[in-house]
């Protein structure tokens, strides 16, 4: 009865990255996701990890939404990962639904993150029972300071854009991976390697529930870009590095010496991934390790998924392509995941 399935259009997912701003909107029919519209707005080169987000940028986003055939102007803003505080908390017994536990979680997050109470928004979810957890309530909380949210929201709202929600991108990407893993993924933990411009994130979840999140600050496309540029001769080394990352990368017929920074980054990622998997496997012994996905702008480097697969001995598909074959651009995954995450939560 496929024809009876209702088609829903998501809000416009907005991922404000360090190098570009990504917009994506999809339609959902049953389990099928179709990309309706997308846009990538490059940002000027800069050195800061968190570039400023001004009114001109917000107006540019508004213009792009109008020009690129997006439906409506309802936005779901993906909270930038660098601004999020994600912590695992051990709280008194009572369950995550308990109001007292939730209040304690907020206080604990403020204490750990060194933020004033009521100066941030937070959300929490209960983690699966630990092998030796006792009666305590184990939750994971995510917090976003009002100051960081306002820096993005004020220009967007002043540009007459309707921001309906701010969703934590790790949770959105994890939910997107759970969709890609399918129903059998609920019995295992899946891993997403998000290779971004400024950092690489390891996201591990069980179903739509985020279990672990780690940022590898010293591994990112920017560092690869810088190292490859440094190895290049001539004036246009930045352009050469860009071209190399986009078209050559780790392709079998590529330049092995030039690709050495990429392999080094992969080694670093794999080392951290092994440690992380060991930790998660020890913590959640009831779950086996399942699918592994790659996403982010770094996932578009030619040959990187195959190289990871060789090293890990398993297939490492691009998350966006696995979740929706129509989405062939890995850098749009976070924006699309944000749109889907909030739309499915609303419905």
């Amino acid at each position, binding site marked *: 009865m496929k024809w009876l399935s209702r088609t829903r259009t998501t809000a416009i997912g907005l991922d404000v990255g360090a190098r570009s701003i990504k917009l994506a909107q999809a339609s959902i029919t049953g389990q099928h996701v179709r990309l309706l519209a997308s846009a990538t707005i490059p940002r000027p080169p800069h050195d800061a990890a968190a570039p400023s987000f001004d009114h001109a940028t917000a107006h540019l986003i508004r213009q792009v939404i109008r020009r690129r055939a997006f439906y409506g102007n309802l936005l779901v803003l993906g909270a930038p990962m660098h601004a999020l505080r994600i912590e695992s908390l051990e709280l008194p017994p009572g369950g995550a639904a308990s109001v007292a536990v939730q209040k304690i979680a907020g206080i604990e997050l403020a204490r750990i993150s060194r933020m004033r109470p009521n100066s941030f*928004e937070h959300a929490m979810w209960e983690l699966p029972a630990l092998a030796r957890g006792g009666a305590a309530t184990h939750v994971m909380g*995510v917090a976003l300071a009002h100051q960081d*949210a*306002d820096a993005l929201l004020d220009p967007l709202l002043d540009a007459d854009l309707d*921001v309906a929600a*701010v969703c934590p991108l790790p949770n959105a990407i994890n939910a997107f991976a759970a969709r890609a893993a399918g129903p059998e993924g609920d019995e295992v933990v899946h891993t997403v390697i998000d290779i971004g411009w400024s950092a690489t994130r390891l996201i591990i979840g069980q179903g739509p*529930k985020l279990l672990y999140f780690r940022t590898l600050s010293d591994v990112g496309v920017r560092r690869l870009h810088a190292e490859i540029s440094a190895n290049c001769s001539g004036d246009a080394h930045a352009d050469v590095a860009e071209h190399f990352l986009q078209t050559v990368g780790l392709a079998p017929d590529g330049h092995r010496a030039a690709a050495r920074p990429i392999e080094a980054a992969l080694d670093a990622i794999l080392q951290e991934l092994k440690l992380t998997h060991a930790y998660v496997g020890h913590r959640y012994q009831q779950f086996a390790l399942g699918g592994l996905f790659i996403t982010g702008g770094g996932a578009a480097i030619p040959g990187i998924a195959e190289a990871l697969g060789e090293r890990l001995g398993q297939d490492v598909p691009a998350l966006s392509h696995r979740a929706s074959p129509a989405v062939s651009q890995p850098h749009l995954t976070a924006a699309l995941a944000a749109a889907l*995450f909030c739309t499915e939560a609303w419905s």
Partner: protein
Amino acid sequence: MSMNLLPPRHRLRRDRARAARRWILAGVSETVLLIAAAVALHAFASIDDRSVHARILSLQTQLSDIDARKTDRAAVISRVQSQLQLRDAVNAPPDYSRLLAAVADALADQGMLTSLKSDITPAPTKAAPLLDANGKPVKLDPYAAGVRLQVQLSGLVRSHDAITQVVDRLQHTGLFDEVRLIKSGRDGFLGADAFTFQITCTTTGAPVAPVGGPEGATP
């Protein structure tokens, strides 16, 4: 799993904006509904006005038809009444006593009357005959122009002057429009000379008036 890290300040701002949009939408909807209702009411009233107007026109047409029929009937009634009056006038016998008295005064012992004939005929008309659209003469009531009474007197007198005196006296009675000596001659009567005469007296009555017309139009 619902996670929305939108700060309360922005939630409030968004809720206010949504509420304002809802109020504006409700206001616009209400205005549109009121305008639609007014237009519908106006259209309904216009339809009612038009139907009443059409009904009035229909009644006016019916009244005009009735008036026209009434006029036709009145003309018919008038004609019938005229014909009835005419019939009465024709059929009613003239006042022969006055006629005989006048004739006797006119003779004045100078002669004798041998015959008296009266005849009632339609009065002659000098108007040109009316023609219809096809050029044919319109058939009119023969008595429409009036009634003519013609009296023929025949008798004997002793002298020829007596004939002139009789004619003169008849003219002065005022009863006749015209008194004409038709024939005179010499004859004998009882062994003496006598003169015979034949006089025609004509009087014409006015047309028979319709109902309400002048009285005494009959001769």
